Every structure is written in C-alpha cells, then in structure tokens.
C-alpha cells in the first residue's frame, strides 16, 4: 500500500507502525511517531495499523531555539 512517510510517498507492506519503524532501521526508543497528525506512544505502535494513504511521522531529536 501507499502511505505518506515524513511527507513523502512511500510503499510499504508492513501492517503496523512498529513494523514500519523497525523496517526503517530505528530502535524503538530513538524516535517518536504519529499517524495522521496524532501522537502514537511507543507502546501502542504494534497495535496501530497502517492504512492506505495514511500519513506517518517518524521524528528524532534535533537542534532547536
């Protein structure tokens, strides 16, 4: 299915957010996540299915003012 991953079109067959995060090579605690603009806590990722066209955000620490 096609989803939006960090603002770009992305093909994935992973059924849930935890699988997608792992497939991207991230350790679970290194990133924070959201689907369709709503925060998904780390412990809920495996119960959060990915649906056609959904918008996934995977974010990490960065510099800020």
């Amino acid at each position, binding site marked *: 299915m096609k989803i939006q991953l*960090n*603002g770009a079109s992305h093909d994935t067959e992973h059924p849930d957010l935890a699988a997608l995060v792992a*497939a*991207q*090579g*991230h350790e679970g605690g*290194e*990133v*924070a*996540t*959201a689907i369709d*603009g*709503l*925060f998904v*806590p*780390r412990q809920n990722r495996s119960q959060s299915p990915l649906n056609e066209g959904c918008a996934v*955000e*995977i*974010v*990490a*620490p*960065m*510099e*800020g*003012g």
Partner: protein
Amino acid sequence: MDSIKGPSSKKLSLYGSEFESRFLIGSAQHPSPAILLDAIVASRAGIVTVSLRREAGKNSGKDGAGQQFWSLIQQSGARLLPNTAGCKTVKEAVNTAHMARELFDTPWIKLEVIGEDDTLQPDVFGLVEAARILCAEGFQVFPYTTDDLVVADKLLAAGCEVLMPWGSPIGSGRGLNNPFALRALRAHFPDTTLVVDAGIGLPSQAAQAMELGYDAILLNTAVAKAGDPVAMARAFAQAIEAGRLAFQAGAIEARDMAAPSTPVLGSPFWHGEHEQ
C-alpha cells in the same frame, strides 16, 4: 527574605527546579557541533532548547543525524527544554509536545504556536488553548508569548507557571521592542517567573531585560550567528548576571536636569552665596 519563586529569588526557579544561571541557550544554527558544545559551556547555561525533525530511515544512507545530536547534547549535561517550533495549530503543537515528552523524557515543553510567518508572532488564541490542554495532561509549559497582559493572565489561568514574552521577533536581534509593556508585565505579575524569549541581539539588550526584573533570558541566534559564538556566549552570560545584579541593587530614577555628584559647598572658586 527571599521567596523561592519570583523575581527576588537568588536562583532561577522553573517548575520547582532551581538553576544558578539565568541564561537559557538555544542549540540551533551553530557553525559546528564542537562550537555548540563550547558555547554551552561558555554560557554557563543550565538549560538548552532542542527540537524534533523528521528522521530518515537508516537504510536510506542519510541516517543517524538525530542520534548524533542526541549523543552530543547529552554531553553538555544541561537540562533539555524541547520546543514545538514550526507548529501553527493547536493540534500540531499538542501532538509535537507529546512526541517531545516521549523522546526527551521530560514534562517540560517550550510551547510555540506561530500565527504569522513574517514576524513569527505567536497565535495567542491557539497558544492559550494548547497550554490549557497540555497543562491538564501533566506538561510543564513554557509558553512563547507576546507582552500582552491579558494573554499572560489567561496562560496563568491555563496552568502555566512560567511566561516567556518576546522581546522582538525571533532572530531579529532588535532587542526589547516595547520596554514599557515588558515593565508593565513584570509589575503586574510580580511572583511569576518571566523569561524574555526571542529577539535579543546584544548583551546590552539582555542586561536591559534583566534590569527590568526579568528572571531569565532565552536566546539562540545572537550567539550561534556571532563571529565568535563562544566569546558571545560568555559575553551574554556576563551581561545577564550584571543585569540581574543591577536589578537587585536598585537603580536610581532618571531625571531631566543635572544633579551634581560632587558636593559644591566650599569648593574652590565657588559661585554660590558667600558665607557671612
């Protein structure tokens, strides 16, 4: 006797945590990671602001920027204050705050809800609503706001214990655009911790805010974009300390006419009336 909170405190108090330094420094825009770390050390700041960004997958060949920064910033030993920079709606800000809380493992959030792109002026209506939601969810909110008294009152009613009014637009270096309003805010909320956030370009401007009785200064660009960021961080540290000391010392009132500082009675060639 000094209270723990508020402008007469010896230490900066933020949601129950105390800090020797009254300087909060931003971590963005520095020329290199090494200079960022050196600038933090030179600033003596106990608090560093951080943010979130989209992280490329590790299989993409562009991975690891987030973890590299995370490792670096932990070396500073500073307390981290994540922000919601770039958020323009309540929903974005609230969800970004949740992601920051999980990632940085802190209830602290510098809440930004931007309402206008040219000035990066806060959307104060969205700010108050987001603050109310986040305070109810256990966050300790540091709202980036204007110098508006009524908005400040509503942010306090929402549960904020710290207010961070702008001096002038973010990154502008214009200093305190409206010292009158900042003075009024200080006078109106004598027991609230007030931090001037944004717009400070020079150490003298930081000192001016501290002389007004502000509790701390948050700045980023003025250090990061200076010719020598480490030296500028040190200069700001000294100015903030000097401004605080001046506030505590009690300044004289300005006056229109001269008032001689040297006693004139009996001085040579005195032009006053002669003693009989």
